[in-house]
Every structure is written in structure tokens, then in C-alpha cells.
């Protein structure tokens, strides 16, 4: 397991948060009319991962070149933490030719083969794909691993259970990461999921299952490190469920009327909490906080600028890329 670099993890969390916050602003800024989901420079559905940074940062701190991630409909935090180019990713979200997918994919369909990163808008369906990537790593004799990310709601999908079984019976280097943010759109976990913890489900497939409480990035780092070491050593899959937080709506524009704990959401924000604990340890100063924030601001602003200056695709380009 690599060394715990608290400052690096904090910095990455701030970077992701700045990204999600700015995309939120940009998404709404030029919507005209303001209610129209299809309008604006960023059209369509937008699922932001603010509050869920600890999940991505704790895992990706252990990843190396060649490791794969399949993310769900809420993918930005894992993409950024895994090294997907912020400029190209942003251009894709703006539907531009300079985007990762030339404007074909959009925010739920980001593909970065260089970093073995992909995501899908059909929930839990990235899990079997991660198993296949892990299978390829194993057959090629590398020690790379595949990270399969999904929400707690998606853990009730058939593909989730099929994938756990496959990974276990074939002893694949996969780590299943479940982001339990309490909600699947308007449905709370306890109304949809039998059993309090998805970590317990791992036992049914003979793999280790860990639950990380309190959206704790360091606990996530520990759990992910152990699971990834195990997978690299050829000892098979693991499952980690982190209790995390959906700081924003399910998608942008979600009024969240169904959400009784909305008032306390900001109090549970993991970033100020982590900053406070690092300050207490003497590992972070106010000056550093300001500098880290300024760097993140500049990087995200530049990515948005890059996206906006990238050309729009021509309508006839829609006919390209159906086949190789």
C-alpha cells in the first residue's frame, strides 16, 4: 500500500469540488429559458458528485497506469481523481469536437481509453465490463486492477449480483465500490434495499466486504489499499461500501422536495471537516487552504475556457463512428 499523503488527498478533493461547483454554475448560467433542460451551453441531464469526493480520492490514491475504472451516471469525481484530462472531459460535457468523445457521448458517456476510464448511464451495467477488464489484465499477466463503481441503488440490479459472482468464481482483480449516498433519486436506501449494509452482501459471494462510515477519506484510503493490494497479489475481488453524501440534487434542477434531511446537508460536507482535522494535525494552514483553492479555481476556469473555445461538431458528423 502506498503512503498516506493527506495534503494530496485534500487537494484532490478541493479540485473535484471546484469542478462540480463550477459545472453547476455553468449548467444553469446560460440556460434560456432557465427551466429548459435541453437549453444552454451544457444541455441534458447533469449528475454532480459534490460530497462524494472521499470515495474517489480514497480509491484513486492507490491506482497506477493501466488500472481501469467503470463509473456510473455520476462519474466526474472518479474521472478527475483517476487522471482523465480535465480539458477534454469538460469539452465533452460542452459537446465540443475537442471533447473526449468529440461531443458524441456527453457527461454520462465519458470514454478515456488512455486511462482505461469509462462510464455508463445504465446503472450497474459498468460492473460486468470491469470484470472483463480485470479478466484481460489477468490473462495478460499484469497486476493491474479494475474498479467498478456504483451507487447503493444500483446494488439491487441483477448485473450487480452477476458481477460479484463472476469476479469471485474467476478470482478476478476487481474492487467493487458502492457509494451509499442514502438516496436513489427520491427513494431512500432503507425502502429499497434488504439489509443495512451492502458490505454484508459480499460474504454471500465469498469475498471481503468492508463498510466505510462517515464519508471518511482516510478510512476509504485504508480499505481501498487493502482491497487493491489483495487484487494485485492475485487474491481476488473485494467490495467496499462507503457511506457518503449527495450534496446536490440527483440531477441539476431536482428540487429535492422528497428529502427530509436537506437542511443538514451542508453540515455534513466532508471537505471543511477534513480541512479542520488536517489543521488540528498541523498538516494544513490557512495559507495552504487558500493556495489550494486558488490553484483549483485556475485549473477549472482554464478547462471551461478550453471547452468553450473548442468548435461545435457539424450535424453530419452524427453519421460517423457507428462502426470501426
Amino acid at each position: 500500500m502506498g503512503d498516506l499523503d493527506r495534503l494530496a488527498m485534500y487537494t484532490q478533493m478541493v479540485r473535484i469540488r471546484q469542478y462540480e461547483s463550477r459545472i453547476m454554475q455553468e449548467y444553469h448560467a446560460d440556460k434560456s429559458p432557465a427551466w429548459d433542460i435541453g437549453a444552454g451551453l451544457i444541455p441534458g441531464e447533469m449528475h454532480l458528485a459534490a460530497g462524494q469526493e472521499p470515495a474517489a480520492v480514497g480509491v484513486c490514491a492507490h491506482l497506477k497506469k493501466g488500472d481501469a475504472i467503470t463509473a456510473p451516471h455520476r462519474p466526474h469525481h472518479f474521472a478527475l481523481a483517476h487522471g482523465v484530462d480535465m480539458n477534454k472531459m469538460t469539452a465533452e460535457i460542452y459537446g465540443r469536437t475537442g471533447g473526449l468523445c468529440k461531443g458524441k457521448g456527453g457527461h454520462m458517456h465519458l470514454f478515456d481509453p488512455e486511462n482505461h476510464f469509462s462510464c455508463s448511464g445504465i446503472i450497474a451495467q459498468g460492473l460486468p465490463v470491469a470484470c472483463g477488464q480485470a479478466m484481460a489484465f489477468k490473462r495478460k499477466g499484469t497486476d493491474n486492477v479494475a474498479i467498478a463503481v456504483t451507487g447503493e441503488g444500483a446494488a439491487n440490479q441483477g448485473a450487480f449480483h452477476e458481477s460479484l459472482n463472476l469476479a469471485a468464481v474467476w478470482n478476478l482483480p476487481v474492487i467493487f465500490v458502492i457509494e451509499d449516498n442514502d438516496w436513489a433519486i427520491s427513494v431512500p436506501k432503507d425502502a429499497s434495499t434488504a439489509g443495512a449494509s451492502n458490505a454484508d452482501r459480499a460474504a454471500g459471494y465469498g469475498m471481503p466486504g468492508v463498510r466505510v462510515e462517515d464519508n471518511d477519506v482516510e478510512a476509504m484510503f485504508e480499505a481501498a489499499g487493502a482491497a487493491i493490494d489483495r487484487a494485485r497479489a492475485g487474491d481476488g475481488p473485494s467490495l467496499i461500501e462507503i457511506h457518503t453524501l449527495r450534496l446536490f440534487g440527483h440531477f441539476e434542477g431536482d428540487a429535492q422536495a422528497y428529502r427530509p434531511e436537506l437542511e443538514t446537508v451542508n453540515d455534513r460536507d466532508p471537505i471543511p471537516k477534513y480541512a479542520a482535522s488536517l489543521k488540528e494535525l498541523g498538516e494544513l494552514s490557512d495559507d495552504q487552504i487558500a493556495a489550494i483553492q486558488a490553484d483549483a479555481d485556475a485549473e477549472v476556469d482554464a478547462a471551461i475556457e478550453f471547452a468553450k473555445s473548442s468548435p461545435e461538431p457539424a450535424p453530419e458528423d452524427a453519421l460517423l463512428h457507428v462502426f470501426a
Partner: protein
Amino acid sequence: MSTTTETRRITTAKAMAEGIGLEMQRDPNVFVMGEDVGAYGGIFGSTTDLFGEFGADRVIDTPISETGFIGAGIGAAVEGLRPVVELMFVDFYGVCMDQISNHMAKIHYESGGNVKVPMVLMTATGGGYSDAAQHSQCLWGTFAHLPGMKVVVPSNPYDAKGLMISAIQDDNPVMYMFHKGGQGLVWMEKNPRSIGEVPEESYTVPIGKAAIAKEGSDVTIVTLSLSVQHSLDVAEELEGEGISVEVVDLRSLVPLDTETVLESVGKTGRVLVVDEDYKSFGLTGEIAAVIAETDPGLLKKPFSRLAVPDVPIPYARPLEYGILPTRDKIKAAVKDLMA
């Protein structure tokens, strides 16, 4: 419609929900289940206010387990209940198609007619708002291709309510495929035709009967769903240019009202089929076959069709509008037929 009926202007979404609600009042065997159909009222408003009226026992939020709850709908229907189940986006058919095609649609036939599956599977279709390849498809041609399920495709609030009531009362499985862009949602661009006069009382619109949405004499547009709204806009515009367009709203694909189609084509001698589904192996080809099998001599001009050109739905707006059957493309295709 009797003259004493109270009507008011409501959205397609509200009309659907009202149809379900009236059937729930009438028949205790009717219940609703699906993702976010409860307090949320359905992501596209199809169950608006039903949770408040009927409660969690009859308007059931499900886990994200489409194979599980669609299959459970089948089981409940087999035992005599009348479930109205929602598949949030039709694109999610991929995770549950076995229950739909191999079970819901085949049980009646396989059982030699002994087992009925009176359920409605309603689902959102269509694009136009940059939801990209996995959330923008129509796919009605896929369901209509597979035997054993009726397929209805409303284009306006009045039909949405009447077809819903017919679908619930039908003893067969009915796919009820509504277009997100035709729901009259406050958060999506909408055609004014997504809000319309709807009677308060219960009424039915027959499944398998097309409507002449607008009469005309030069060209027939055969279409369905949101493309009806676009086609009506185009027809009104072309009226000013001296072209008289008849718009046939199919309303249902299974059964298909070939009689109304043939009658209209026989009158105008020119046909354009507009379909937001993929072009090949689908509705547009089916209508061409119906005409060709009956009398190719009905047409004065070669058959014309406008559909998604066999590519997944792309994300960026210029790409998506490059492949959708927009008003401009419909207009150009009609003019080509008149040239």
C-alpha cells in the same frame, strides 16, 4: 364526447395520471409500481398526485430492479390484478427484456389462451434534449416487432388519457410509450400541443384506431407521438404555401390501423412516414410494405420516409438535431414530394 362534459386544459402527463387515477378509483385491482412513481410523481409526471390520493400501498416505489418488478407485475396480472408498471426510460429495456418479451408478451399464447396478462407497461421515449445515446431512444418498432403485446403511442393529452384507460381495461399486456417532449413538462421545451382540452370524466380511446389529426388532400404524413405535433406545425405552415397536408396519427402500432393509412394514401397519392425511431427494419418500412402489398398504384410519387438514420442518438445538440426528424426536415420532405 357529450356536450355536458366538463373539460379543462391539462398536460399530457397529467392526463395520463388522471386516466390511471380514475381506473384506480373504479377497480381496486389496479395499482402502480415503478421507480420514483410515489412521492416524486414519476420522473416524467406520469403518476402526478397519485401517491397523495392512493398512498404507498397502491403507488409503489420499487428498487432499481427492473427484471424483478416488471416480472412481479406479470405475476400479479396473472393472478387477476391490473398492474400499471413504469419502466422509467424505454432505453432501460436492456436490463429487463426477458420479462417483457419472453414472459409478458408470450404467456397468453404459450398457454393456449388459458392465461391472461392484463398489465400496462408505460415508458418514456424520445430525445431532443441532449440526453444522449442511452436515454433518448424511441424503440417502439422493437416492441411492435415482437408478437404478443399491444403498443400504444399517444401524441396529445386527450388521447393520453383515453388510451391509458383502454390499456388498463385491456386483457392483454399493453406497452404504453409516451414521449418526454410531449408530456408538457415544465422543465423541457414543449409544443403548445402538449397541453390540451381533456374531459374530467372517464372515457376511452380505442386501441388500434388511428386518427386523422388534420385533413388534407395533397400529401399524407403518417406519423406518431411527438412527430405528430411537429407534423401538424408543418402542415399549418404549408397551408399558407398552398400545400394541403393530411396528418395521420397512428396512436397505436399494435394493432396497426392499416385501413385509415390506406384510405388517406389513396386520397392524396403521396406519402411521407415520419418516425423518431431508427430507420431500418422498423415502422417506416412497415408502412411501405402495407401500401405495396395492397396496391403500389396508390402512390403518384415514390414512397418517402424520414427517420433516425441508423445511428445511436448523439449528445451534442448539433449532432442530435442532425439526425432527429425536425420540422425543417419534414417540411423539406413534403416539398420534395410535391416537386
